[in-house]
């Protein structure tokens, strides 16, 4: 799922300074699961903002609402009547939600409350790790199910580099070296020979971000 972290509090305070009535909109899906922008964290942020503004004598009125998902037009429309009553929106959903509301409500200023960070896996309760770069051209079958594009600091396709020592990446000591994992897993699957074949350069033009913002269309589904 999409993983995000709340933005530094001072930053949010700063860009909300000119406004005194806003809508704080959470999202019930990914940011709820990673405890960044669900109803609980949204209410916490709202309460903190009210107190901070009260402390400097400029009270801030915050309406709170958390639709099930912010990236669907219907859920955005649900907020339309409250939008009329506020000067700005602080959305604590991921970047997608913020931009959906921006598209649906062109006249209202909108601010992100979280930093959307990566597509990740829950390694333990409260610990999430990056797993996918959404490059649009998956190579996981070549690397025993571990993606070097997302999990290697140098995105090597013929790793490991000279800096991998006792299974850890030299750039971040706590991160596992993706290629050590690929090597170990290939060994356990008995597919070490596959690692001796050179993986050719990745075609970034096929479906990756480098070929420009992407769009998926299913003609059969179109209404």
């Amino acid at each position, binding site marked *: 799922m999409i993983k995000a972290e709340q933005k530094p509090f001072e930053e949010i305070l700063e860009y909300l300074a000119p406004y005194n009535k806003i809508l704080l909109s959470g999202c*019930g899906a990914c940011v*709820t699961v990673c405890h960044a922008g669900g*109803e609980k964290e949204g209410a916490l942020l709202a309460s903190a903002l009210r107190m901070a503004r009260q402390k400097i004598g400029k009270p801030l009125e915050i309406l709170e609402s958390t639709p099930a998902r912010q990236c669907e037009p219907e859920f955005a429309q649900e907020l339309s009547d409250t939008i009329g009553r506020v000067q700005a929106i602080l959305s604590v959903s991921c970047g997608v939600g913020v931009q959906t509301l921006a598209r649906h409500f062109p006249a209202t200023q909108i601010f992100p409350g979280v930093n959307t960070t990566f597509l990740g896996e829950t390694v333990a309760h409260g610990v999430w790790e990056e797993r996918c770069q959404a490059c649009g051209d998956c190579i996981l079958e070549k690397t025993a199910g571990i993606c070097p594009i997302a999990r290697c600091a140098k995105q090597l396709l013929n790793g490991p580099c000279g800096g991998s020592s006792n299974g850890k990446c030299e750039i971040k000591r706590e991160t596992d070296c993706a290629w050590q994992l690929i090597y170990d897993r290939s060994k356990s699957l008995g597919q070490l020979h596959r690692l001796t074949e050179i993986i050719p350069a990745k075609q970034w033009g096929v479906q990756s971000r480098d070929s420009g913002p992407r769009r998926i269309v299913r003609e059969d589904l179109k209404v």
Partner: protein
Amino acid sequence: MYRTVYKSKTAAPAPINLKPEVLIMGGGIVGMTVARELAREGVQVVIAEKGETLGGGARDLHFFYDRPADVQKWMGDLISTLEGEGNIHVLKGAKLKRLDGQLGRFQALVRTSDGMERTLSPSAVVVATGCITRPAEAMSDGSRCIGSSEMEKLLAESRDLPLTWKGQPVKTVTFILDLTNDDIKIHTVNAIKQAVILREKGCQVAVVARDLKVSASGIELLYRQAREKGVLFFKYDEPPVVSHTGDGISVEISDMTVLRKEERETVSLLSDLVIIGETFAADPETLELCRVMKLRAGTGGVLMEDNPQFLRVMSNRRGIFLAGGCRFPQVITESLSEAHAVVQEVKALLRGGVYTPVNPVAEVDPPKCAVCYTCVRLCPHAAIGVERYGDRNIYSAPAEKNGDTLWGAARVDPAACFGCGICVAECPARAITLYQ
């Protein structure tokens, strides 16, 4: 906002009916005692014993410390009463593979050594898997340094003949205590008991300990009896040095009776045999059982944390109880007292054949649930599960009573919920409410 800690709920949670069926893990003296008592109440009892014979840890014991009876004979009678009892069914070489469901609808998948797999549906589970003893390292080289269970066997075999060990006569014996497990009384109790018997056989006996554990009923008197019969007791601060000399084994300790530390000279006890209590360690299968049954493990791998609120026999899950060595290694009388306490708890639970939740119960509002498993991971009582699309997922949204909207959401089982509210506070979508 924070004042509404509870919400009142009109309909009381439905009572859960409980069939009088109990599964007991472990066929030691505790498990057998609980089985016998419950069977008398007409409860259908299944004992799942991991070994091929009943008796557990008591199989190494022959003498009680507080009464003249023979342990093996007493255990034999207990086993025979079990076999004669129609309500008790013993599964040998049994291993619990899975435990699903909650109080009233537990589903226990047990595989026995003959390859058979059975699904039992007990209303309550009693864990009495005991603890295992591993030989202390000093015993590894097998020479003249044996464990207390081996000495117990020797004494039992040579009832009235002079004591021999591997063919050689045994004249002097030294017990060394508190090398490991210095918080368990069993070694001291066994040592004093065996010392008295050895004196009656005319052996010269010495007991070396850091702190003599006499806090079991009747032990101080036995300790006094041992002293009157001539058993020598030594105390130490630094552990004694054990060395093998030609014809025996010598134990060196500093003589604590001399007051000035520097003036104490070392006393060397030359003896034919040295007895060191085995190390009591957590049974690795108990840890595996904790995982399978979602029970909490305490420090050192025993079952359940040492928390006074749980009164020694309750586990963190309703309907699962524990007793005896698996919670903490203790003497037989204490373990049996815990066994009877468990019998009482099970009788009180199964009385009336129904359990109605008395404490507040949490309930998830399915549409708001993001199925993030926070509550499932954090519930100390393993009361919450996500029953996705299985047949049991009759969990319809409370709003629509027609029951055809099935939600893939977390669900709190009212029978297992203790009403603490931890899940309510941790839920990122604030989807859980506590109903009084």
